[in-house]
């Protein structure tokens, strides 16, 4: 349905607020690390409904949803 979620992995500091806040359990740890050595998150687009809750709780502007 045209939902695009961009995750800026280099901004992610691994706080996991988004993982707890997501009402659809669409956010999880990716298993990969960014250049800072932090395991960043990834979004399951099959589950994501684009509600923006991850954007709201993120201190580091990792998410862009359009």
């Amino acid at each position, binding site marked *: 349905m045209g939902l695009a979620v961009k995750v800026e992995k280099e901004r992610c*500091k*691994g706080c996991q607020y988004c993982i*707890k806040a997501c009402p659809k359990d669409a956010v999880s740890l990716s298993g990969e690390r960014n250049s800072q050595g932090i395991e960043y998150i990834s979004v399951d687009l099959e589950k994501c409904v684009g*509600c923006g809750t991850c954007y709201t709780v993120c*201190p*580091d502007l990792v998410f862009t*949803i359009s």
Partner: protein
Amino acid sequence: MGKEYKGPDCIKGTSGYCAGCGHGIINRLIAEVLEEMGLEKKTIISLAVGCSCIMGDYVEVDKIQAPHGRAPATATGIKRMRPDNLVLTYQGDGDIASIGCAEIIHAAARNEKITTIFVNNGVYGMTGGQMAPTTLPHQVTATSPRGRDTSLTGMPVKLSEMIAVLPVAYVARGSVHNPASIKKTKSYIKKAIQAQVDKEGFSMVEVLAPCPTNWHLSPLASMERIEQEVIPYYTPGELVKKEGV
């Protein structure tokens, strides 16, 4: 199509804050409100000392750094000379409730037409988590290793309640511990800025925020601590709301 969620244009690069720091959320809320109200080019933010001034590194609006605690005095001068600008102070609890307590109380008492965003995480963050006036009873910090002893240090300062008795336009206390509180805090920030735009007088929003590094908790555990320990003492809500705000 649903709503679009995109970071404010005036935030550039990555912040220097620790993982899970509440400042990042609050910086974004301020930037969002400024851009939504079309005020980002007219804003001057007076920063003082502490983690709060890291905002100066990556939020691209005009800023000035004041001596420790003196952001309200600096903001007073700016606003009086440039009344058409929006003038904010952005301060942490060590800065505003201890070192700068006189400045904020008298700026509020004069009902200066400035807006203060006060981030309350209960410790001096940048210097290593020392006890602040806002530290909760029995809270362990670098300078209260057995927990804050209120028989020696008194009870935590409720700055918003102290200011609420003065003739000011708007005082509210929000939190960033869950999505609903973050949205409510954004609405408080918007009302506080609107109060200044409407020349109503002094406005302030206190925001309860986590400091995972100095609380020695994970970010998620820090947010739970706000809900279970901080909010029972520092009640969120609007304390002063002048008519029209």
